[in-house]
Structure formats: C-alpha cells, structure tokens
C-alpha cells in the first residue's frame, strides 16, 4: 500500500486500483474542531484538482480536492454523525472517500511522507 500527499494536505492511500482519501493530521490541526463534512455521491467521477468535499470547522468551510482522477466508489457515512473523527483519527477512521483510480501513475507526481513532512515544516 502506497500513501502519498498533496500540497493541499490531502492523503491518498492506494491498494490495487482503489484509493482511500482523507485530509492530513496537519490539515485537521489547522482547521480545528471539524463540525461537518460534506461528501460527494457514489458514482461521481473526479478529475485531479476537482473540489469533491467540504470540511467545516466552527469558524470556516474549507474545500478538499481530488489528488488524482477517478470515480467515487464509497463514502465514509460515519462522518455524518461523527465529524470529529476527522480530528481524532485523520489517517484512519476519519477517511473521506474511496475512489477507483483511473491512472495509478498519477500518484508518482505526489509527495511521499518525507517530502510532505518538509512541506509542512
């Protein structure tokens, strides 16, 4: 399983051609307490850079962007009632969506963990 990171603080973890996407612990920390997550419908196709979700903190709404092209195959329904999972476990239970990735080589253009660490340093 490969995990990569975007400059906009999404993470994407690839297993076969299915990728799970969420926001990083750094992003969750910057947002503060998450009170609502708006997720897309299953079946929606995304182009890299498309806004596909919105995460709301007490103060503001922030967009979440697709790290690669693909089609939504599953959304994390649990966030509807427990948006705080995004703060508690951003890399685990706080995931946003799963997508079927169109071209897995697009992940090569994203940062690995070490590069992302430098990006947020």
């Amino acid at each position, binding site marked *: 399983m490969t995990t990569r990171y975007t400059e906009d603080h999404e993470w994407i973890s690839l297993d076969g051609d299915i990728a799970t996407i969420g926001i990083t612990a750094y992003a969750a920390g910057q947002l*503060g*307490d998450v*009170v*609502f997550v*708006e997720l897309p419908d299953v079946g929606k196709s995304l182009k890299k850079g498309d806004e596909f979700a*919105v995460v*709301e*903190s*007490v*103060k*503001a*709404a922030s967009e979440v962007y697709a790290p690669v092209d693909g089609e939504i195959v599953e959304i994390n329904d649990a966030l*509807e009632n427990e948006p705080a999972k995004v703060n508690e476990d951003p890399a685990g239970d706080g995931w946003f969506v799963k997508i079927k990735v169109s071209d897995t080589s697009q992940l090569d253009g994203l940062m690995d963990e070490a590069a992302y660490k430098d990006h947020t340093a």
Partner: protein
Amino acid sequence: MTGTLFKTPLHALHVELGGKMVPFAGYDMPVQYPLGIMGEHKHTREKAGLFDVSHMGQARYIGDEAALEALLTADLSAISAGEQKYTLLLNETGGIRDDLMVSRPDGEGIFLVVNAATKDNDFALIENATKGKGTLTRIEDRALLALQGPAAKDVMKRLCPDACEMVFMQCGAFTLDGTHVLISRSGYTGEDGFEISIPEDDAERIARLLLDQPEVEAIGLGARDSLRLEAGLCLYGHDMDETRTPVEASLIWALSKTRRERGDFPGADVIAAQIDAKTCQKRIGLTLSGAPAREGAEIASKDGTVIGIVTSGGFGPTVNGPVAMGYIDRDFMQPGTEVDILVRGKPRAAKVVKMPFVTANFYRG
C-alpha cells in the same frame, strides 16, 4: 504584512500564550489559543473567559450632550451616573453607521466604546457634528478587557468586590490590583461579565492576574464570534450596516421611547414610515441541520423563491448545531416558519427561531 498592523498592549502576551494571530480590523489579533475555538467557547459558557478587546474605540465626550445625542438613538438625559446604554449611530436615511455603548462611569462626561473597524469614521463624525459645542477625546492609551462567563463574578469578588455590586448595564470607576480602572457589567457573549478599561501600562499585569485565577482561560476572536452569534447579538458590517435601519435589524428596542416620540434622530422619517408600513425585511434567527450556513447564503421559501440572506452563520458549540442570523421577507419572519438555506447551492431545511439561541445569563440583581 504584520508590520502594517496595529498591536494592542497585550500583543506579546497573546503570542506567549500560543495565540494564532490574524489580521482583524487593522490589528494583529488572536483568533484562538491552543485550547481551540470549541474549547474556548464552552469554557466561557461554563466558567470564565478573558478577551482582549483593546482594538475597540474608546473615547470621552464632554460638553453639550444634545449635540451628541442628535446622532444617536439614545436619550442621554435618561442615562444616570453609573449606567450604560446600547445605542446606534445612524445616517440621514436611518441606516446604521455603528452600534456602540455610552455610559457615565464617573463624573467626567460620557464614555463611549465603538467598533474597531468604524472608530475613525465614528469619531470624525462626532467631532464634526459637535464642533464648538463639545469635546470628544479619543482614548488611545487604554486597553479594554472583557471577563465573561458564570464564574466572572467569583473572580471579581476576589479581585474587585465592589464591582460585583453592579447589575447588568451598570458601570463605575474602581481600583483593581492598585490600578484605577473603569468597569461595566456587560459583554458580548450573552453571559454575565465585566468589561474593564485599563491604562495600557497596567494592562498586561492585570490580564496575567486575571488569567492566574483558576476559572479563567484566554479566549480568541473565533469563540468571541460563536458566543455572540449564539447570544443573537449583531456583528457590525455583517448583520447590520448603512443599508439597514434599526427596524430591519430588529433593534427598535435601541431607539429610546422619548427619542421616538420626538422624532429627532437621523432618518426618523424613514424609520417611522417603516414601522407603520410593516413591509420591510427583518433580521431573524435560523437553525438548520447538517451543514452550517455561512454569511452570504441565500434563504429560500419551500417553493424555491429567494426570500432572504444569511448575514452570520456557523456552528454553535453550546447549541451543538448550526445557527445563523439573516434578513428575511416579512411573510416568513414568524418563529417556526420552515424555509431552506442554500448551502453551496443545496437546499438545507431550516427553521426561523427566536433569538437568543441560548438563554441569556445576565445578572439583574
């Protein structure tokens, strides 16, 4: 960027406390501390929060009070020594230039506290209008702190017991830790609390003394906004501005009865006509489920017609759900009316409700 921003006398303390500093009304201010907006909000409702509001404009007016009163909605002659009133500064068409506090904390004329973003315009307007009749002195060398929450009185009982004799909207001059300060029993959270005007050189020492009390946490602008929203209190420039009158803003209560009878405030004709016609939009509160509705979101009737706009909105930590205020067409202003708010184009079921969203806990004796 920060080089062009003003700093309050507590700036170094905010940074020391880990405050996340952001530009606000020309000042570099803490939006939150490590506790976070949610934690700071709840702490204020449960115990006590300390807010730095030194960016607000403080001034003294001494002289012919009729000249000052002509700009406002208050009856200044009805404000006795030791009393404070909320009032509005209006333009010629009844639009709201600012909302402000006027008070008589001591024998030295009227003490004014106005909004940070509007203070220069307000003070210039007052100076011009009262030229030759009175003197407005801007106070640039005092900090302003707000101690808010149910435990604020317990803190003050320890540090300045005389101030606890006051009830909501009273004010006076007191000694706090050896420093001469002005205190009013008021605030912007819907809770009991005190607002304290302090000479700038003593401000950090007194802020630290207050923060040393076990009940008190430092609170940033983020929680200040969510607290005032739940309390149903307007934020100038958002929930009201020069295009809205006190009738539309549901602030007729800030128009004193005698001034209304005399009809001698700016825009009195426009306002009287609006009161009679009962057709203008009104500021109301809204609750909704799911996504918070933010400023600028449209309010629609169930048949999809746009009937209003959200002017403040967010998540209410005490309500534990999204709350908003906005302007809505008359036919829809009754509490209980079901409407939609368009959040990112998607209609979200909302209901018009009475404000405040949380019970006010002012100390009335």
